[in-house]
């Protein structure tokens, strides 16, 4: 589903990703682990299409298509979803109205019929209940005054609503206590699907206790320096990034 080859990405002329290779097939959950500054967030942003992240070499192929050539909204409509580390607060736009606009924009782009307000409301309510997202949250301005846990739950609610083919979770565990983490992880696990690939980006092994990946890649200095099964997370936890990076060199 996703094939990243020799990817070099620069921000403002400074190279952050330096020849990254990664391949994920449908139904799999991959984790990217790495120390701060290794390029984890750059990878998530470049996959979602953020402006200012220049692909200077290499390619990102998504279902046979050059993903790098598409604007962010087209990627979303084709099933790429990024659960953000820092969801933005937008005063003046209610959460419910935002969800409806986004869902229908994606449907329009795919040539599907738009859902009416009642239809969206019903779907959102059903999915929101499972993630403990309250009716009151949906009425509030998007992410405004939400706690860290509420923001992350809303990200997962969006993932559940948009039903992406490729879901990227950028540091979804950051800022969550253990109960909030479990709730978010349950939400993510419920979305595991043979037709869906997931890329879980995290600094800590903790999240991977709850979302167990098929494969782990260690990112350091803008490259994948080590790969392995889920046991690699435990090794990282025991040895630390420095040792793993040294071992790989």
């Amino acid at each position, binding site marked *: 589903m996703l094939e990243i080859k020799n990817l070099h990405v620069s921000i403002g002329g400074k190279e952050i990703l330096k020849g990254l290779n990664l391949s994920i097939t449908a139904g799999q959950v991959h984790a990217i682990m790495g120390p701060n500054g290794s390029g984890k967030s750059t990878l998530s942003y470049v996959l979602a299409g953020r*402006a200012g992240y220049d692909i200077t070499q290499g390619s990102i192929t998504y279902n046979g298509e050059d993903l790098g050539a598409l604007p962010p909204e087209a*990627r979303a409509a084709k099933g790429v979803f990024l659960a953000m580390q820092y969801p933005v607060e937008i005063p*003046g736009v209610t959460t419910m109205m*935002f969800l409806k606009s986004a869902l229908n924009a994606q449907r329009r*782009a795919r040539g599907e019929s738009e859902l009416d307000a009642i239809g969206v409301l019903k779907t959102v309510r059903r999915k929101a209940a499972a993630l403990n997202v309250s009716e009151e949250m949906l009425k509030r301005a998007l992410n405004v005054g939400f706690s860290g846990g509420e923001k992350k739950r809303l990200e997962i609610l969006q993932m559940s609503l948009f039903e992406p083919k490729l879901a990227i979770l950028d540091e979804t565990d950051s800022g969550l206590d253990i109960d909030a983490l479990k709730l978010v992880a349950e939400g993510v696990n419920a979305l595991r699907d043979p037709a869906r690939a997931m890329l879980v980006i995290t600094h800590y092994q903790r999240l991977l206790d709850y979302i167990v990946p098929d494969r782990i890649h260690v990112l350091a200095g803008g490259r994948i320096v080590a790969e392995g099964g889920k046991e690699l997370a435990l090794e990282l936890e025991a040895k630390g990034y420095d040792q793993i990076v040294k071992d790989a060199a």
Partner: protein
Amino acid sequence: MKTALAPARREQAASHFRAIGIPTRRVEEWKYSDLAKALGDTAFSQDTARWKLGKLPAGVEMFDLAEANAPDWVRTHLGSLKETALSAASLAYADGGVALRVTGAVETPLEIEFSGKGNLRALVVLEKNSALTLVEKANGDDQRNVGVEILLGANARLHHVRIARANAAVHIEEVAMTLARDAIYNAHYASFGATLSRLELDIALEGQGAQAHLSGVSVLSGEAHADITTRISHAVGNTQSTQLFKKVAGGKSRAVYQGKVTVAQGADGSDSRQTAKALLLGDRAEADLKPELEIFADDVKCAHGAAVGDLDADSLFYLRARGIPESDARDLLIHAFLEDAMAGIVRSDLRDQVRAAVNEALAS
């Protein structure tokens, strides 16, 4: 104004205006609005501009200032409040206008419309414990100078919504207002600009517990100009004022906000907040935001802030990453930017009217 204004008072206003004349940009308060240039170096026409009222609800008394036999309340109050050179001009040269007196708590909104060229006067008196919702429309491509006086008696409530829309016009409106004890003025001004448009307010909170809550939105494009200048004086303690202005300027337009809040000596317990923000959507658009505070009292809560910027890149990316196309995402953020300033409009029907005018301006 045959009987409403004593000839000596009228002559006094004329000499006040003649002494100062049309303000130039050398006058600090007119630095961002070049009235002399917009008028082509002539004063406003000697004509009297027009006014039109909607159906008069019960509890509101009206007097046409062009008529004879002005009642006492008109003769007492007309020309009684603080004047600027331009409001002196409308007092001296307008031959008509409208005076309203409210004696009860009026539910139905009253609509008032100003049009045509020249000078015009309006007087609004709310007696104690009375209430009115006034919906003002300022239209037409003319050069017009309107002078308004508003007197709010003890515990009176005025809800004022003004929608100003023009193209090749010079529209000046100078409002002077006093609020007695516990009176509340709640206003929203939506302005869509003109060649030069300026709303100037001088609000005196003169009774304990008086409150003025002002908000406004401005959506400007092309070469439009819209200036809101406010002066609020907390003359006594335990008075409140809030101001929230949001402006969106595209093309080569110019949005101006100047707000001066003065808290007098001894006016302890005064509470004042003012915020003005502008979103610049064109490389050549300009916003001049100038909040000012002058405090002579000790125990007060005052805050002010101003910010000029572009749409937030993080927000724009977030919306696009959720599938919302760039132009829709921009629209959504612009609406969201303006929304909190409109949220202060008390009546939902009027809030919808302002929203509709904003949507129309954004779509054009």
